[in-house]
């Protein structure tokens, strides 16, 4: 099970937070801060797994992260997930974002966090991996966006007619 998925930048600013277990807002912020603190002080060429983190986790949980340019993608998972499998999943996630946003950069995530959520929802559901096939994810995301667009034009039509 995945307990949480966090994206923050090199300064610890959250760009996306998805908790699959309930915490109150303050705790969530603390978790983000702590996770950033743990992850950011690590060298580039050390391993991508991290234990500890007092707030999230416990002995069964691990932080698995990847660092892309200005962003950290962090997954908090328990022992039922394969460590390397999650690393691959992060890669799939980033590649999907790249396809959906066409050369994704931090700004895309800043301004379109809702879209990122929608993409993520096609990959992970309620803490469990739903789909790992990038093409399938993109197909579903595109189909939904298309639906949304048709609805928007319909709304506009409603308004001005």
């Amino acid at each position, binding site marked *: 099970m995945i307990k949480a998925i966090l994206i923050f930048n090199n300064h610890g600013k959250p760009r996306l937070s998805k908790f699959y277990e309930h915490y109150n807002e303050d705790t969530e912020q603390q978790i983000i801060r702590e996770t950033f603190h743990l992850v950011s002080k690590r060298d580039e060429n050390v*391993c991508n797994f991290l234990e500890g983190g007092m707030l999230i986790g416990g002995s069964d949980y691990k932080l698995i992260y990847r660092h892309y340019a200005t962003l950290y993608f962090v997954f908090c998972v328990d022992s039922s997930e394969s460590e390397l499998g999650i690393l691959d999943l992060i890669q799939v996630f980033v590649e999907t974002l790249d396809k959906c946003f066409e050369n994704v950069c931090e700004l895309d995530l800043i*301004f379109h966090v809702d879209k990122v*959520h929608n993409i993520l929802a096609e990959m992970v559901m309620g803490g*469990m991996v739903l789909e790992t*096939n990038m093409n399938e994810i993109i197909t579903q995301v595109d189909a939904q966006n298309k639906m949304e667009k048709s609805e928007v034009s319909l709304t506009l039509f409603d308004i001005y007619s």
Partner: protein
Amino acid sequence: MALKIVKGSIDRMFDKNLQDLVRGIRNHKEDEAKYISTCIDEIKQELKQDNIAVKANAVCKLTYLQMLGYDVSWAAFNIVEVMSSSKFTYKRIGYLAASQCFHESTDVIMLTTNQIRKDLSSPNQYDTGVALTGLSCFVTPDLARDLANDIMTLMSHTKPYIRKKAVLIMYKVFLKYPESLRPAFPRLKEKLEDPDPGVQSAAVNVICELARRNPKNYLSLAPLFFKLMTSSTNNWVLIKIIKLFGALTPLEPRLGKKLIEPLTNLIHSTSAMSLLYECVNTVIAVLISLSSGMPNHSASIQLCVQKLRILIEDSDQNCEPSVNACMKYLGLLAMSKILKTHPKSVQSHKDLILQCLDDKDESIRLRALDLLYGMVSKKNLMEIVKKLMLHVDKAEGTTYRDELLTKIIDICSQSNYQYITNFEWYISILVELTRLEGTRHGHLIASQMLDVAIRVKAIRVFAVAQMATLLDNAHLLTGNVQRKGICEVLYAAAWICGEFSEHLDNPTQTLEAMLRPKVATLPGHIQAVYVQNAAKLFATVLKSQEGNTDSTAAQETSQLMIDRLPLFVQSANLEVQERASCILQLVKYIQKLQQKDVEIAEEVIALFAGELNPVAPKAQKKVPVPEGLDLDAWINEPPSESESEDEQPRAIFAKEEPKHSRPRHTEVDEKELAKRREARKQEQANNPFYIKSSPSSQKVYQEAPGVEHIPVVQIDLSVPLKVPVFCPTGLPMSDQYVKLEEERRQKDRADKKKKEKKKRKEKRSGRGKRHDSGPESEEDITPAHMVDIVTEEMPENALPSDDDDKDPNDPHKALDIDLDKPLADSEKLPVRSHRAAEVLKSPAQDGDAESAASQEPKKKSSKEKREKKKDKDRDRKKSKEDKKKKKKHKHEEKGEDLLGGQAEEPVVQSEATSEVAAPPTSTTAEVSDLDFWLSNAPVPSNTQEAATVVAAAEAAPTSEVASGTAPDSEPDEPKDTETEETKSSKHKKKKQKKEKEEKEKKKKKKHHHHHHHSDGGGEESVQNGTVEEEEPLPPMSNYCLLAENSYIKMMMEDADKVNDIQGNLQDGSQVVVSVIFENKCDSFLKSMEFNVLDSLNSKLQRPEGSGPHDGLTVPFQLPPGVSNEARFVFTMQSIITPQKLKGTLTFIVKNEDSSTHEKLDFKLHFTCTSYLISTPCYSDAFAKLLESGDLKCSSVKLEGVVMPFHHLLARICFRHHFSVVERIDSCASMYSRSIQDHHVCLLVKTSGQTVSIDAKCDEPTLLGNVLDEIKQTFSQC
């Protein structure tokens, strides 16, 4: 109206959207909070508008603000509004917001049920998808229960997109509503073979997640997963399955053997590192499970460790460094798995682990630390800890340093300080650790200090000295704010100095240190300990000074106390204040006495006399509940429920499990009570948790199970050593110990060498080698101290329980459900219906309780079945042997007893055929499926699979046949031999007659078997009739005549006595038969032997060691005219049909001049009634039971019954072991339970001479028979 819409949408044009909000926040870096609060005000305005688009925009912005840490739960209702929009765009926004901020205690969730249901059944698959995604984040027990059925329907949706989401969300539903697991599982299992890979993957995901927590329940799925593993190409699925197999192999070693080959294939073929690694991991798990107990496999473990070492050590130049680091990490992780079972294999790689301890990567260091735990020995502990101490000094981050600290303590204290040879060294390590700044583990160090000082008596002198120094330098520990955590050690220091003050060199100085004004800045609980222990110290000081002629010193000490204590009396902390003022007054009084030159030291010391023993941390939990104390029972009966509920059961004659069927209070006679009281007293006396009534008994306790009686781990010693220079705190003293220790060991070794030279005769092969290679073996290292490690106390007769570590709140506990059992009718997911308000009240609780109640017996029964199967297997072997023997026997006897021999064969055959006809129980079939699959047959290909399953299903009943024949054919033999003996002895005259009897018996036997296995009701009733007619029934007595002759009369009561009920319920298959033997003749009857021919279904329980056909000696003799009662226990397999057993009583009739051997044949008739236990049942529970719907209905009409209704009821109660649940006028509900937990419910109505009985039971056959018996009872009156 139109204008309004236009206005709204124009407004919307000028509203901030999410992008504007983000931009705004970025532009207001200086006053972000202020800006956001104005934005929230705007949002609040927007939410008030009717336009859903405006609302959705506002909610979208709120979702963003939620991520920034703003509580948006106040908008929960608006979120629900947006969720229920008909437009997908808004719906999606609404569900996203809900998934981010709804949780179980969000009350508006209740409002969403119908909306979600609507969305789930929407024709647009994305509406459904969005609803499922949202629901997966905020599903509550209520939602899970209400929507489980809808979601289950979606699992078979035409669109794979919906199917996979529905399958995945089922896991969340199971967690919140465990009752749904069994009804939904068949479909879930089906989805493992869904044509869509996404759906398949989701199903694998869910089952793996379920199986991870309760692997044994999913063992039967192994063949299916195996098939998937060999056919799937989806790496994600493969990883999950392989991880699952890793969890299953420890439960079933045969599985491991099967896995090795496909796993090896995957390892060779895959290019995905993740899959490869999981394969290796599972191979390790397989090897571990295979090698336990098999030494030849440890070589392959060794090989694994070697390979892992390569993974850890080498870095692939082509890879990124981080990838190499990952592999290193995972290599260490895998090694730690091996360490648990094969510590030896890993220990040889200590160098590598220690090297990893120096890695720059903290994660790798932590993994290495974990491994270190298993590597220490007496020999290298000091060295390893020294290294760790160096790391402690170097470590920058507090997290890692704290981790190091806990690891050091873990390593040293593991298995009762097993590896510590020198406790002075350990104490100094602990003291050194107090120098750490900002650690959170002051408490941990303190508890170690206390533990060691209390449990290792020999170390107290040293510990007290160290602690005194600590107290003296307390300012170092309390100096700055950062050291807050560490001042906890002062708690330990003060206590140790006070408790063991007799060992102090300079108690006055320590006393002074403890009363410094600075102490008042410490936390309250530490101050309290200071004050209390200052008093102890004071007592010691007084004692030492009393001998002096000069009393001024003593008075000075008192004065010191009187001067300093008022500071604590003013403390804000209640505990400190109370103790301080008490002690202050005491000291003042002492001072007064001192001035009168009264010797008081002894009395003051007596205040603190006695020693405190360590108590194990779990001791409290292990205290057994005293016999006869039911913690769940009401002390006072609860007030009765409202009247409206009382009426319920009459109205609905439907079904459910009785929740409150409470254990019956057994009637206990005075003797028994006295016995229990005595036992309890005994127990209390030995139990430290009871406050004793008299002071004397306290003393007894202190002396009896006191320190001397506590088991002591003795470590013997050679030379006690002292560190020559006494260092003040802050200097690494422990290093000196390491050096000294080395010297000492060398000396030891030298000594040993000498000794060895003296004792030449000893074989020196092993030792010689050791000398060459340097390191000594564990046993060679002698500890430096005479050390008694006092083990912790446990209450006597503590309950051995392993479930201490299990978290009772773990949601997965509720999912430990047997899935192989076929579904009962009642196990359905709740379908949408209008529920009565009262049902809503506490659905979750109700559900839990019910499921707990219903699962308990289920699990039990399946276990029993399995056990029985095992037994049968064993029996089968035995029976084969028996058969062989018998055959020989038969040949010998053939001439004499041809008839008997012939009769035997057909009996067995009819037996076998009827067994085959009986459908095998599904559990056995499942198990044997798995067994078959696991048996060493070649890996079945896809086509073979189906065939094997069928074959296995066929194999199951045949095996039962084989085992079934054995016990049945056995009883024949003793008969033959017995009759043989009798023939040869006194009764030669009767030989002819006997043989006739024999024939008859055989015939009857045959008949009996026939009856037993055929389900034809008619035949049975005839038999019942014939038997019952013979029974003369004295009014209201369950005793009936069993057999009678001129010598003896046997009366039987087929009921279970009150005393035996418990035993019956536990076993679920025992019936106790009380037989009254009455001597009717003038002679003395002795050596009575009671014997019964066991049938397949019912067996007489014989004492251990006796054969299956030995008679039971009746434990008394009968003088003329006397009667006595004996009880016999029978074990029943199936209780749903009545049973008849033939038996013989042999006895010796003794006159003054002669004695003759006599026998009496009888027939034991076990009616179905005799399997019922009258169990009280409350009307509400009764109603529930009836509502539950898993009971089968049947009814019977009795005509011409002329007796008052209450007589009728009394008769049913008495004869058929029912209890009246409720009675209204001429109508009554009755309840009873069988020893195998079948519920039997009756509704008896009478009108005129007609009595109609409606009955329900979960076992129709049993019910039919019981009703027949009831009918019989009344037809006779």
